[in-house]
């Protein structure tokens, strides 16, 4: 086994031009797939960030007293898909309204309101799964004591559609990228095996088993795959952190979009290295071995 492993490693140097070509092709393929994944994940994070700002406000009838409001709060809490319920009294609403009007005349303006607060009591509700907002609103609507409901349904529908669209587009792009990469990588593996078909035929003729011939190719492919995976991880991490630095210099656009910032590198770095190396090793190792098959039929 030591000989076969050593032979695989030796073959990388012996066939160095093909090894470099395979390494480059693998690295570029992994980089393309990785960056597409990161782009998609960040877009999803942005959309989710916006979604998380969702809030449904339920305005109560004037005749709902505190006992009834408390009972309604408990009922709403138990409705599926309701994440949280906060009672928002008419006094708080008035106070907030005053505060939001940064005008010297605010007090004068509100003096006309007098003792009577015209604003209604309300519940501020957060929805767990935004895509399921419509049935949740229907459940809430069945309750007595509700005057009206203010929900960003249209906006949420647009976001949900956008998220679904991005999901489908990125899945299609990823799938296409993976397929193209597989074709290119397997062609590279085939080319590297092809120039050694004579060698394989000789090995067969002198009585070597298929396994004995395949193992060094497998070792070679796995090693190159791992190397390409590590290299691609390093480039991705470096490229991503530099990109974040540039984009984070002006966060205005992202704050307008109410996002939580980019996915921090620490969240995915280890997974990325493992994923890249594993993908590289599996695709390259098995791709190389598969390419030897037709030459083993001697």
């Amino acid at each position: 086994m030591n000989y076969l492993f050593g032979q695989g490693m030796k073959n990388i140097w012996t066939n160095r031009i093909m090894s470099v070509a395979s390494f480059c092709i693998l690295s570029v393929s992994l980089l393309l797939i990785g960056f597409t994944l990161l782009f998609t994940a960040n877009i999803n994070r942005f959309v989710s960030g916006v979604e998380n700002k969702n809030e449904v406000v339920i305005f109560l009838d004037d005749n709902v007293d505190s006992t009834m409001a408390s009972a309604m709060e408990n009922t709403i809490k138990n409705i599926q898909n309701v994440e949280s319920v906060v009672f928002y009294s008419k006094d708080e609403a008035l106070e907030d309204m005053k505060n939001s009007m940064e005008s010297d005349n605010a007090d004068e303006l509100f003096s006309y309101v007098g003792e009577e607060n015209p604003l209604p009591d309300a519940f501020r509700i957060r929805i767990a799964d935004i895509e399921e907002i419509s049935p949740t609103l229907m459940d809430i609507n069945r309750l007595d004591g509700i005057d009206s409901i203010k929900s960003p349904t249209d906006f949420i529908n647009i976001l949900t559609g956008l998220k679904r669209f991005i999901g489908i587009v990125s899945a299609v792009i990823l799938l296409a990228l993976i397929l193209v990469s597989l074709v290119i990588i397997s062609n590279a593996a085939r080319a590297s095996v092809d120039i050694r078909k004579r060698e394989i035929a000789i090995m067969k003729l002198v009585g070597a088993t298929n396994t004995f011939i395949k193992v060094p190719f497998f070792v070679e492919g796995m090693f190159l795959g791992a190397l390409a995976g590590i290299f691609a991880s390093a480039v991705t991490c470096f490229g991503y952190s530099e990109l974040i630095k540039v984009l984070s210099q002006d966060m205005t656009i992202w704050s307008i979009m109410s996002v939580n910032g980019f996915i921090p590198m620490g969240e995915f770095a280890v997974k990325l290295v493992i994923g890249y190396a594993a993908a590289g090793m599996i695709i390259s190792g098995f791709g190389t071995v598969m390419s030897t098959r037709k030459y083993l039929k001697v």
Partner: protein
Amino acid sequence: MVELRNVSVTYSNGVDALHDVSLRINDGEFAFVVGESGAGKSTLIKLLLKEITPTSGRIMVNGFNLEKLKKSKAHKLRRTIGFVFQDFKLINTMNVYDNVAFVLRSIDAPIKYIRNRVPYVISLVGLKDKAKSFPTELSGGEQQRVALARALVNDPQLIIADEPTGNLDPKTSLEIVELLKGINECGTTVMMVTHEHELVRHFGGRTITIKDGRITFDDYIG
């Protein structure tokens, strides 16, 4: 021992490469197989290596019934045969030592045995000082000697030499056949395929002539 009984080979393009060939080469024999290009010599070798299967007939090589031997088990048969080819069929990325040692490594022979056996066989063919050379650094005659060492290293029952002198000058050709004769004298069966009648006449012995896929002569000459 090599035995063919009523063997015929018809390729998918309709060419009759061998027609009802029966032949027996006993253990310890040296036999020349001669014939012009396209006579069926290469087909005969392919059959003995189980690279192809006959359309009809029965083949026994070193106790293996090739009809029953699965393609996936062909390595078991090939390990009992040493091959020498016109184009040497050496692995150019391996040096002389590794080319010869490959056969033993592929059968998982002990390292100690490989370390003793390989230099011995390389010295037998007169290449003691070239063990670290690569095939491309050797002359045609030297490359053929490496191929001979590789064929010998596993102590095979049979050596099949396919036009081993085809790429060599007359002097080197004589040396190679003499080496094959020497190997045969040690008890190994040798079947040498050639189209060089001069060489056959020079050495004499059992000669099998194939023409148009049929054996037209099988006797001792010289």
